[in-house]
């Protein structure tokens, strides 16, 4: 496993998800802020793209039907997040 590459891709995803989390909480108390909403939607699109790229290399990020898996069932493969 190319750990450095995985960590770099993961970091980009974590950065963009952080943007989305922060904007999500802000929008919860400022739902009419159009600029923040636009930023949130841009972040959400970027996350979808980054997730697809990450999952193509390292397998599903989400369980219960929110990610596709190659054969054999990739969800059971490590490392798990606390082991990375």
């Amino acid at each position, binding site marked *: 496993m190319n750990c450095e590459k995985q960590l770099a891709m993961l970091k980009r995803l974590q950065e963009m*998800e952080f943007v989305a989390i922060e904007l999500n909480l802000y929008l*919860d108390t400022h739902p009419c802020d159009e600029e923040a909403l636009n930023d949130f939607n841009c972040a959400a699109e970027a996350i979808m793209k980054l997730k697809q790229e990450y999952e193509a290399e390292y397998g599903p990020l989400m369980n219960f039907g929110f990610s596709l898996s190659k054969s054999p069932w990739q969800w059971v493969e490590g490392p798990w997040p606390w082991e990375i």
Partner: protein
Amino acid sequence: MWIYEKKLEHPVNVSCPNLKLAKMVITQYGGPDGELSASLRYINQRYSMPFDKAKALLTDIGTEEMAHMEMIAALVYKLVDGASPRDFVEAGWEGQWTQHDHGLFWTDTNGVPWSAKYIACLGDPITDLVEDMAAEQKARATYEHLIAASDDECVNDTLRFLWEREVVHFQRFGEMLNEVQEYMAKCNVWNGHKFEKSK
């Protein structure tokens, strides 16, 4: 419904295993002001919130707290990695070894197990939002205590991220509290389980 995402919210690294620090950090896992308390408190309080916005905020912050609980678990896991029984004894954490080995458990630094007594739900939006704001401040202060006592820069990077989240959550809860109070100022009275126009 919740879906698991196979990643941490923010990277968790340690410079080297450190049982004494693990014993301190564990309070943010199962202590009174830890992340388990936070996530359960908010997710449980949302059912009696008067506005959809407040239900959303408690759902989202409660969910983020679950991700923080996972970060604290990862931190303890890495700080304990490779420790021998003797190491636990020398760190003064022999209770952890004896009862849990390398398994995680919901306790505070003093070994007191997690209790539902740490969290409240009065069903009154003002009371519950003020409790949430106090909880964020208590967690912030605890993270400051941990950062002050730790000289591991990798650990401190994780602790500082979590510290910052407490500040943001406090801000958002404060905004929600203002909204509820403004609504009440327009002659809406909390009458047991719902708002009613005052006469």
